[in-house]
């Protein structure tokens, strides 16, 4: 702040409070709705304060699910989402670390070709090649499996570039020292490179966890088995069901679906900001 202007200060806080209200209000309404009995949510105006059905609603959702839409317990869906998110983020980090290491620390024929092959994947989001990718997965017999949910999504140009960029900033002297001490490439990777990359790995993990958790189209296409539904995609069946939407259950599901990623972001805010700003540039 350069000079003191009370009017401007007032305006500043007004803007921020309006922004916070705009972002938080939908979640507030969802939270409130999820604690009422379904019959109270059939007609406007809706209550804006909590009801007393919260515990009942959430226990039923997590343990039994909603019979009208298949009755898959949300506990199951949350577990599937968790497996998928962890699988995708760990998978992306592992294979990207490996290939970035190869690109930076080795000279081998075909290096540039491989590099460009990976680079191209930046331009091919799942959404634009849905049908043929689905076809490939179907032929490999990976429909309705956790590996089908995870493996096709673990190639990552962004992560590879990020690690490559980071490896390039590590002083050459470390390699020389390692070689003098007769440490081979694998030893160097484990004992020197990996410990140095810890912060970067953690920051990237947050971004990738959110990416994996929030996948929608992919699980929607390749899982027809209700035991494999993920929560972000499962909510769609409730919204578009034949009967009238059961709002208390839908909003409860929405809340449960956003809790894990939101907690990750809030608990690791500093790392999250670092991961976001660096992985995008």
């Amino acid at each position, binding site marked *: 702040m350069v000079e003191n202007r009370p009017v*401007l200060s007032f305006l500043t806080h007004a803007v921020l409070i309006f922004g916070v209200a705009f972002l938080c209000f939908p979640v507030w309404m969802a939270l409130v709705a999820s604690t009422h009995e379904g019959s109270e949510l059939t007609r406007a105006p809706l209550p804006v304060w909590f009801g007393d059905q919260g515990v009942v609603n959430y226990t039923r959702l997590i343990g039994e699910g909603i019979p009208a839409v298949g009755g898959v317990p949300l506990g199951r869906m949350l577990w599937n989402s968790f497996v998928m998110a962890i699988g995708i983020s760990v998978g992306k980090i592992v294979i*990207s670390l490996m290939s970035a290491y190869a690109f930076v620390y080795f000279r081998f024929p075909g290096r540039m070709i491989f590099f460009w092959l990976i680079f191209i994947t930046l331009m091919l989001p799942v959404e634009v090649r849905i049908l043929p990718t689905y076809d490939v997965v179907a032929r490999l017999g990976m429909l309705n499996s956790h590996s089908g949910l995870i493996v096709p999504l673990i190639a990552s140009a962004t992560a590879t570039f990020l690690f490559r960029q980071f490896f390039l900033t590590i002083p050459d002297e470390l390699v020389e020292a390692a070689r003098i001490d007769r440490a081979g490439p694998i030893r160097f990777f484990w004992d020197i490179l990996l410990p140095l990359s810890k912060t970067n790995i953690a920051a990237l993990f947050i971004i990738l966890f959110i990416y994996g958790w929030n996948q929608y189209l992919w699980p929607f296409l390749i899982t027809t088995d209700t035991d494999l539904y993920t929560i972000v995609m499962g909510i769609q069946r409730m919204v578009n069901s034949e009967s009238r939407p059961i709002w208390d259950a839908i909003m409860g599901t929405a809340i449960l679906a*956003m809790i894990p990623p939101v907690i990750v972001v809030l608990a690791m805010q500093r790392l999250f900001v670092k991961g976001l700003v660096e992985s995008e540039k």
Partner: protein
Amino acid sequence: MQKRVVFRNRWLPYLLVAPQIAVTLVFFIWPAYRALETSLFIEDAFGFSRQFVGLDNFAALWANPAYLASFGRTVMFGLSVTAISMGMALALAVAANRVIHTASTYRTLLIWPYAVAPAIAGVLWFFMMNPTVGIVAYWLEQWFGYDWNHYVNGNQALLMVIIAAAWKQVSYNFLFFLAGLQSIPKSLIEAAAIDRAGPVRRFWSIVFPLLAPTTFFLLVVNLVYAFFDTFAIIHATTNGGPADSTSILIYRVFSTGFLGQDYGSSAAQSVILMVLVVGMTIVQFRYIDRRVNY
């Protein structure tokens, strides 16, 4: 691009890149090639026979008023989402950059929607605006006598998905604008203040031009987000309706291929979108190159 000192090993580097390359070839390059190939054929719905038709699928799209209308809507949708979310984010970032004591509290309260899945964001607004129970629809009715029903009114449905898509993207833009603002040297602002430039003048003459790289970067990212990542918002709520009014290009690829079973046309639409992404990625990288140089 590479270290001066490297390890020597004949097979290890290949082993290291193998998993990434395998996944890329099987799940990215091959399907993309298949999409290109399929776009040149007409296939019957059962996959028994297919016929080479050259660019007919593309010509058919060009001649299809529904597709062209969808193109126009997508541009409208993309520009609206980008304008709303970037405008709000910029205002919030400027404000958050000005407060001192409560800055981190505000930041915490503003960044969490980044973690909310697009599908969930769509469902939240779908609930808020629902004509029978939604609180926003109720307020519109009570205070303005405005009849909101996105089940029948296409423009209202489009507005609903625009708001949901923009809502989710505000925090992302906010973080980047804030980082951009914090990198502007304080001395420039102070010098301007000494020259008696007011806050508004300072913003437009100094802060905004210096933010240009961030703004441009976000412009591309937001358009890509609006064109591709918003599929979930639309699929989870309006399903492209009513009467195609919210079926943007990415939704059409899906509905033509999976629901309509017209593989040739769906593949042709995929190819058009791929060209679009490639173009945008090139624009983005050219800009990054230039920024690194200056």
